[in-house]
């Protein structure tokens, strides 16, 4: 059986869609170092540069530390700057990530999620972006190729918004989303150009008539004021993400909020999960709903800043919740999404039971049957009010 092509749609991998989006955005500078599984982005985009399809100054650097450093310099100079990386590459950028956010530079980075060493592994999990969760970057997560592309375009607007001025990380799952071809609706070049607009930096280093210093030392009398400004800006960015998601919806027909609620309204049990695995979980929900079981999903799109009020509100009437993390915080108490979701729910008068399940590390499969098993356990908890194991790994190994 063949599915007929739909007009206006293209079949693209996540990496190709991101590279294409970057071509449409046409940033002034891109400094990047290739690393699996994000290599395709850098490879295809450098092709656009070589073909003269973009005006971008592409800086080939010797490491990710240098890539982020060059991005910071270019952004401070007043350029619109983008890059992409994965795993060890993001880890190697670590100290520079904080400098980008502290200097309030609106850099857009695509992180194709991959496990961190050791042991070395090239496949998907979220240990890279979750390791950078407190680096002061806004983080958007993407379930599909379409969401990754749409998030990328919106990221430019969010980062450069005058009330925000912070770097944004767009996350998509390594191989699962980056290398799988999906149908995607692309926006035409002129509409992308109009949507993102021109970027005018307020204090570009290259404006020699109005000299500025970036990276000056601050002592105990001012450091805290700058951090307070930054803290308020990332908190404010939540509303900007909402506004731009709505505007995107009006213009292009695909509206984005802070999170997606899937059959959650009347649910007794819910799974909270990020990125592509939410798609697998939706299949499980559809199957269980047919059997009359009230289950649903909360898929956060924005993780930084954490929309804690909205998360609490979305899970207010659920009896049991499993937060599935594709990363372990190695704190002996589950993953980061679990810890923060559970903390967000503390404000509720009547709180659901919340359990942590770690899944899919280093590319381990997560199947519909795994989601069904978690929902069965949750429905039991909803009935009895008793939690047998608060934190657990979903090993899913057939032997």
């Amino acid at each position: 059986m063949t599915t007929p092509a739909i007009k206006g749609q293209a079949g693209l991998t996540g990496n190709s869609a991101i590279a294409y989006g970057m071509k449409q955005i046409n940033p002034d500078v891109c400094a990047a170092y290739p690393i699996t599984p994000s290599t395709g982005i850098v490879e295809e985009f450098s092709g656009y540069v070589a073909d003269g399809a973009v005006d971008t100054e592409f800086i080939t650097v010797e490491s990710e530390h240098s890539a982020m450093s060059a991005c910071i310099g270019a952004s401070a100079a007043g350029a619109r700057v983008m890059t992409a990386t994965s795993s060890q590459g993001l880890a190697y950028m670590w100290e520079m990530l904080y400098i980008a956010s502290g200097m309030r530079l609106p850099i857009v980075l695509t992180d194709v999620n991959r496990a961190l060493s050791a042991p070395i592994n090239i496949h998907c999990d979220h240990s890279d972006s979750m390791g950078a969760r407190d680096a002061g970057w806004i983080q958007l997560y993407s379930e599909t190729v379409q969401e990754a592309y749409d998030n990328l375009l919106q990221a430019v607007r969010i980062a450069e918004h005058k009330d925000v001025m912070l770097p944004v990380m767009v996350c998509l799952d390594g191989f699962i989303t980056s290398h799988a071809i999906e149908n995607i609706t692309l926006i035409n070049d002129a509409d992308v150009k109009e949507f993102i607009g021109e970027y005018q930096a307020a204090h570009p280093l290259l404006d020699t008539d109005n000299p500025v210093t970036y990276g000056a030392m601050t002592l105990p009398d001012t450091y805290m004021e700058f951090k307070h400004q930054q803290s308020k800006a990332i908190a404010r960015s939540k509303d900007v993400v909402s506004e731009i998601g709505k505007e995107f919806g009006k213009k292009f027909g695909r509206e984005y909020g802070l999170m997606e609620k899937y059959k959650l309204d009347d649910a007794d049990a819910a799974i909270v999960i990020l990125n592509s695995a939410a798609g697998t979980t939706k299949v499980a929900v559809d199957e269980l709903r047919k059997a009359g079981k009230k289950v649903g999903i909360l898929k956060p799109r924005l993780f930084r800043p954490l929309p804690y009020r909205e998360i609490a509100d979305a899970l207010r009437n659920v009896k049991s919740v499993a937060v599935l993390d594709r990363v372990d915080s190695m704190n002996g108490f589950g993953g980061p999404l679990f810890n923060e979701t559970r903390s967000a729910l503390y404000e509720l008068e009547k709180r659901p039971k919340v359990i942590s399940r770690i899944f899919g590390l280093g590319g381990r499969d997560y199947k519909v049957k795994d989601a069904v098993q978690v929902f069965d356990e949750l429905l039991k908890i909803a009935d009895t009010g008793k939690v047998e194991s608060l934190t657990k790994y979903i090993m899913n190994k057939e032997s």
Partner: protein
Amino acid sequence: MTEKKNLPIGGIITQGGTAHEYVTGGWRKLRPVLDKGKCTSCLICWVMCPDSAIIVEEGKMIGFDMEHCKGCGICAEECPDKVKAITMKEETEQ
């Protein structure tokens, strides 16, 4: 710095030459002392000083900006061997 309420974002400084306003002389442990009789005003010290703390008037080296001199001793080190007009002394030494 400007008032805290009006601090520009990102820790940037929105004007040039602000180093003048920040007095670093208090960091000094050793101070440079000039022997005017030996000095030839070759101005190597003026070139090498990292803090622009060598005061020059009409082409002549006339002394040090003690509000900004950190006492690093580069001027004394760079003063030519045949001249050695600058010596570093403890702040407590006469």
